[in-house]
C-alpha cells in the first residue's frame, strides 16, 4: 500500500520536477539583463556628502541633501539643470523627441516660467537648447542652442539670454565648427569671458577641446589639445582649478585636474584613470570631486565621491606644483539608481 502511494506521489512529482528545472534555468539568467533602477527617493546613500546636490534620473529632478534624496516638483522630462549663484532658482531643460526648452524653476522645483519656445510645427524649424548655466551675477543664462541651421547642418553654438528677458534678446556667443555637433557646456567667467567645449575634426575623428573666449564671438583659444579629447569642464569654487574628463579618443575617460589662472591651464594631472566617468563636480569646499560612473550588474550610473587627502591647493599654471596634492580612493555614494550622466552635476 505504502509502495503504491510512493509511486503515485513520484509520478505526480515528475511534472513538477520538469517545471522546477525550467524555473531553475530561468533563475540562472544574467542579472545584468534584468537589473532595474529604483528612484533615488527610494534609496539611501551610503554616506552623506556636504552641501546640496541636484541630480536627474528618468526625467525627474532630485535634491540630495543631508544624506537624503527628495524629488523636486513633478516628474517630467527634465534632462539637464543649473542653479543660480544665490541657489534660489534653477534653470532646467525639458526635452521631448523634437525639441528642448529651458525653464526657470524655484528651488523647490516649481516652474516659474518657460524661457525658450523652440517647439514649432515645421520639423526642422524646431530647436534644441541644452547645457544651461547661469552667470555669476545671476542675470544671464548661457546655453547651447542649434542656431543657425542650414540644410542638414545642425550644430550647437553657445548663446546667452537675460534670465528675465524674452528669447528674442538671446545672442550667439560662439561660432561652432560645421557638422561636428558644435559648442557645448558653457561656463561663464567674470568679465564676460567664457569657458566651453568645442568639437573639431582631428586626425582620428571628431574630438573635443576646452576653449576660452574673452568676449562674444571672439576667436578664442584652445586650452587643451585635440588628442587629449577633453570635455565636461568643472571649475573649482575658488576658480583656480579645472576638472574635466579626457578620453584621448578611447572608450574610457580619465578624470583630470589642472590649475587655471583665468587665461591658461597648468599641468594636467590624472586623478582617476579609465572607466566610463562623467559629469565631474567640485565639492563646495573644494575638498574633492563628485562624478558619475557605472556600478553594479546593470551598469547604471551611480554617484561617486573622490576625496582629496588634503584640501586642493591652487597652483600657478606655469609652476611645477600640481593640484590637488594627494587623493584617496573613490567611494560609491549611491546604489541601485540610474542617474543621467549627460547633465553636469549641480553641487553647492
Amino acid at each position, binding site marked *: 500500500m505504502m*509502495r503504491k502511494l510512493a*509511486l503515485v506521489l*513520484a509520478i505526480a512529482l*515528475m511534472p513538477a*520536477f*520538469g517545471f*522546477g*528545472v*525550467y524555473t531553475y*534555468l*530561468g533563475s*540562472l*539568467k*544574467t542579472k*545584468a*539583463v*534584468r*537589473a532595474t533602477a529604483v528612484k533615488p527617493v527610494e534609496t539611501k546613500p551610503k554616506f552623506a556628502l556636504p552641501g546640496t546636490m541636484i541630480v536627474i534620473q528618468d526625467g525627474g529632478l532630485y535634491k540630495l541633501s543631508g544624506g537624503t534624496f527628495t524629488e523636486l516638483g513633478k516628474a517630467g522630462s527634465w534632462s539637464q539643470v543649473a542653479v543660480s549663484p544665490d541657489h534660489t532658482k534653477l534653470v532646467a531643460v525639458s526635452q521631448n*523627441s*523634437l*525639441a528642448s526648452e529651458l525653464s526657470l524653476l524655484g528651488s523647490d522645483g516649481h516652474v516659474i516660467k518657460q524661457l525658450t519656445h523652440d517647439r514649432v510645427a515645421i*520639423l*526642422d524649424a*524646431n530647436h*534644441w537648447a*541644452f547645457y544651461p548655466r547661469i552667470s555669476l551675477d545671476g542675470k544671464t543664462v548661457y546655453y547651447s542652442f542649434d542656431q543657425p541651421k542650414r540644410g*542638414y547642418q*545642425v*550644430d*550647437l553654438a553657445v548663446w546667452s539670454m537675460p534670465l528675465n528677458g524674452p528669447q528674442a534678446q538671446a545672442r550667439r556667443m560662439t561660432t561652432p*565648427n*560645421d*557638422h*561636428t*555637433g*558644435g559648442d*557645448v557646456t558653457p561656463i561663464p567667467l567674470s568679465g564676460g569671458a567664457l569657458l566651453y567645449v568645442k*568639437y573639431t*575634426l582631428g586626425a582620428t*575623428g*571628431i574630438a*573635443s577641446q576646452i576653449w576660452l573666449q574673452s568676449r562674444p564671438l571672439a576667436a578664442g583659444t584652445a586650452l587643451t589639445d585635440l588628442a587629449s*579629447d577633453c*570635455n*565636461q569642464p568643472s571649475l573649482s569654487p575658488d576658480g583656480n582649478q579645472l576638472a574635466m*574628463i579626457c*578620453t584621448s579618443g578611447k*572608450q*574610457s*575617460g580619465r578624470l583630470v585636474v589642472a590649475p587655471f589662472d583665468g587665461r591658461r591651464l597648468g599641468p594636467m594631472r590624472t586623478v582617476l584613470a579609465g572607466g*566610463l566617468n*562623467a559629469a565631474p563636480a567640485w565639492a563646495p569646499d573644494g575638498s574633492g570631486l563628485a562624478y*558619475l*560612473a*557605472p556600478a553594479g550588474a*546593470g*551598469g547604471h*550610473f551611480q554617484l561617486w565621491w573622490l576625496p582629496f587627502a588634503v584640501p586642493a591647493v591652487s597652483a600657478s599654471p606655469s609652476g611645477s606644483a600640481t593640484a590637488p596634492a594627494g587623493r584617496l580612493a573613490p567611494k560609491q555614494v549611491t546604489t541601485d539608481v540610474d542617474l543621467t*550622466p*549627460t547633465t553636469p552635476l549641480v553641487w553647492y
Partner: protein
Amino acid sequence: MQSDPNFSPMNPALTGTPPEAAIRRLRASRRRQWSTVLTVVLVLLGFLVSGAAGAVVYFWPVLMAGYQQTGQVSDIKAAASAVAQSPAAVPPAGAAFTVLLLGSDDDSKFPADHVLTQSMILVRVDPSARQVTMLSIPRDLWVPLSTGTTEKIDGAYSHGKAAAALATVEKNFHVHIDDYAWIGLKGLIKLIDQVGGVDLVVSNPVLDDFYPSDIDVRNPYGYTRVAVLPGAQHLDGMHALQYVRSRHNDLQSDFGRSYRQQQVLLALRAKASGLNPTDLPDLVSAVSGEFKTSMGLSRLRELLGIAQQVDFSRIHQIILTPPYTSSGQIPGHSALNPHWDLILPLVRQYFP
C-alpha cells in the same frame, strides 16, 4: 503414536531438498526486489525525462532558431559558386574565421529581403591569438556586383540576398568569408535592450533634423529629430540605433557612422561577455525574424566564448577613409571610388 512437531514434508532441513513453496516464496521475494529496483529505475528515468523536457521547453526558442535562423549554408554555397570557388570547408575549431556582418533598414518601405545593407563590417576572429579585426565597408562604395551590374555595394543584398552580398565582397576584396550574420533595425533595438543596453562614450553631439521615422509607424517616409549628447552613457536599443544610424550632420559623412557602428558593436561585445547560455532563449526570441546567419549554434557559442576572452587592446578597427577611397560623382549617384591599390594590401595584411 506421538507426532514429531518439527516434522513437515516441506521442511528442507528435514527433507534435504527445497520444497516448492519455499522456492515460490524465494522467487516471489526476488521478483519483489526486481520490481522495486525496476520501479525505482523507472521513477528516476521519469524524473530525468521530465527534467529534460523542462530544459527542452526552456531552450525551445534556441532550438527553433537553430533550425530556422542559423546555419543557412545555402547562402554561403551560393556565394561560393558565384565567385567560382568550390564551397569552402568549415574551418576547424580554434582556427581563424571571417564573418560578414550586415545591417539593413528593413522598414516597411522595402519588400522583405530586397533591402539595402547600410552597414557592412568584415570581421576576422582569431581565437588562438584572441585577436579581432573589424573593417567597415562604406555603403556607397562603387563596385561591380556579383549579380552583374555595377552599383553601390549596399545594393548587392537587395539583388540576391546574403549570397550576393557575400560574393560581391569576396570578389572585390579578394577575401574568403566563412559566415555571415544579418540583422534588421528592430532586431538591433531588441538585441541591445535584451542585453540591458550598451555602455559607451559618445564622441560628439550627434544631431540630425532628418532622421528616418520608419519604425512602428503608419507612414514610413516621415522624419524626426535626433539629439544624442556626448560623453559616457548607457544607451537603450532605440537610442543606440539613433547613434549608429544618424548620418546627416557628420563631417566625416558615412565614415563617422561606420566608426559609431563599430563602437556600438564593441559595446555589445562587452555586454555579451557577461552573458551565459541561459540568456540565449530570451535573446533569440527578441530578434526572431530580424536576424539571419549562416553560423551554426556551435560557431555562435564559440563567438560568445571569444567575446569573453578578447580584450579591447587586441581589437583592430579599420575604416576606409581617404586615401583608400575618394568621393566621386557617377551620373545620378554620389558614390565612393575604391582605390584598390591601397585597399587590397591592407585586406591581405589583416584578412590573410
